[in-house]
């Protein structure tokens, strides 16, 4: 059940260029959240009103983990959070990634930069079921990579400039990889819109299910404002607009369109 509550910052560390990793103690959310879900963080002040949505990057005891990139004034404020800071949150919000009943399914996680956040949580859930996914993570350059090693997955790191891992985009290397996979694949993706669009141009075999976690400007996170819509195809949503906050943020790639 969604709740509005106060959390306490346990730690807040820089892990890469402009990328931070925060631990917030908030038992009401930590005990029930699922990978793919997000929280809204409220900020004091009367000039910028909207809360900001953040994917939950994992759970540690009574705390949730937030992996974030500093891109505006609110994330700049976050980067200065000290241990003990009280934070107002709403969550858990949205739907989640799912683990198939079919034991033969191979899991692939595909992240662009800080888009690794919800996939790190999903990787943890898979690990609980003794499933080790292939985890592709790409960034422009080494300093923008939120993680570079991982024991719970087969991690494949890519950088556009080759400063760490494989040289090239994460999509290019993923395409090479997927060609050789024969088992059914659950592909779970989070990254910039350009990465999602690129996926649309790849022709996948039928046994690949693709779930993408989307991000949109949101005012409420609850489905009240109807602002965070994504265009859908004729499938599940019948060509109507779906709400990223409530119907998503995780969608089947075939159900959504990106050409806006």
């Amino acid at each position, binding site marked *: 059940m969604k*709740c509005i509550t106060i959390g306490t910052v346990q730690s807040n560390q820089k892990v890469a260029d402009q990328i931070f990793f925060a631990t917030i103690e908030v038992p009401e959310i930590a005990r029930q959240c699922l990978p793919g879900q997000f929280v809204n963080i409220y900020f004091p002040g009367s000039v910028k009103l909207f809360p900001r949505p953040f994917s939950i990057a994992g759970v540690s005891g009574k705390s949730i983990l937030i992996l974030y990139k500093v891109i505006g004034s609110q994330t700049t404020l976050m980067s200065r959070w000290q241990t003990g800071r009280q934070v107002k949150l709403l969550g858990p919000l949205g739907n989640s990634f799912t683990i198939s009943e079919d034991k033969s399914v191979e899991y692939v996680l595909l992240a662009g930069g800080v888009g690794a956040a919800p996939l790190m949580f999903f990787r943890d859930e898979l690990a609980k079921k003794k499933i080790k996914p292939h985890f592709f993570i790409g960034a422009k350059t080494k300093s923008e990579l939120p993680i570079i090693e991982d024991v719970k997955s087969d991690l494949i790191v890519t950088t556009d400039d080759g400063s760490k891992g494989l040289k090239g985009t994460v999509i290019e290397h993923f395409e090479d990889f997927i060609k050789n996979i024969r088992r059914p694949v659950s592909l779970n993706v989070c990254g910039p819109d350009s990465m999602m669009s690129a996926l649309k141009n790849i022709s996948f075999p039928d046994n690949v299910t693709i779930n993408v976690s989307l991000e949109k*400007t949101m*005012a409420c996170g*609850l489905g*009240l404002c*109807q*602002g*965070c819509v994504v*265009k859908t195809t004729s499938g599940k949503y019948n060509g109507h*607009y779906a709400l990223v906050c409530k119907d998503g943020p995780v969608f089947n790639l075939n159900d959504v369109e990106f050409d806006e």
Partner: protein
Amino acid sequence: MNDLSIDLGKGLKLANPVLTASGTFGYGDEVSEVVDVNRFGGIVTKSLSLEPRIGNPPPRIVETPSGMINSIGLANIGLEAFLREKAPYLSQLSCKVIINIAARTEEEFCDVIKALDNEKWISAYEINVSCPNVKEGGIAFGTDPDVLRCLTRKLRDKTDRYLIVKLSPNVTNIAQMAEIVQECNADAVSMINTLYGAAIDIHTRKPKINTVIGGLSGPAIKPAALAHIIKAREVIDIPIIGIGGISNGEDVIEFMLAGASAVQLGTVNFYNPCAIYEILNFIEQYMTQYNLMSLQKIIGQALV
């Protein structure tokens, strides 16, 4: 115990003056996990049209200084689904339920009212003649005095139920529009709907809203709303339901002093869904501080 109740006339009594604004609170059920909907004096549901509307393409919202611009385009599930899916929840609420209606034509307004008039749990209709974000109908009904007169008369003939007309600030003389609504025997006006607003991305040079111009709301428009209410109060006697950037208890009192008998919370529902609790606490304290037996006594008492 302080008496927060408000009598809006014609049998419509609210437990307190705080309502939700249409389109900012869904149908109440979406938010019922985080806030006790019955703490409101009443809720005004998302604009309802005869047929479902998918709404406008994205981007639909943008944050602006102390406010936001929206262009949702009256996305809603339509009358049939509303009665099937939402009425069971709404009809069991103890707070008042006011249905906001939007339409492209006079006939469509009449058809929706006809279908809702048998639903005993509905306390009032709020007629949306002021949506700035749809091509047909919408704001056209609220900006032409003759069209507004014709529509209000027609709807008054159709129903005995409490009738509120929601006014647009995007007119030269809002007092004139309020006067027309009163002349046509509607029971109250609610004001203001959103102001025209625009925002442009300086890097891509694209508008930040799909329709280029959308509706501006939030604390940024509060002084404009108060000014319009003061102007309307000078010329009408029917109740004014104040809307525009209200975010706390102080704002509610300010609107009531300006002449509002009740208020609606809009944009604040997005950034503080539990504002109602703080607001009711503040009103109680204010009444105690100024020894007010009834909140009704402060309506229009600003020394203007």
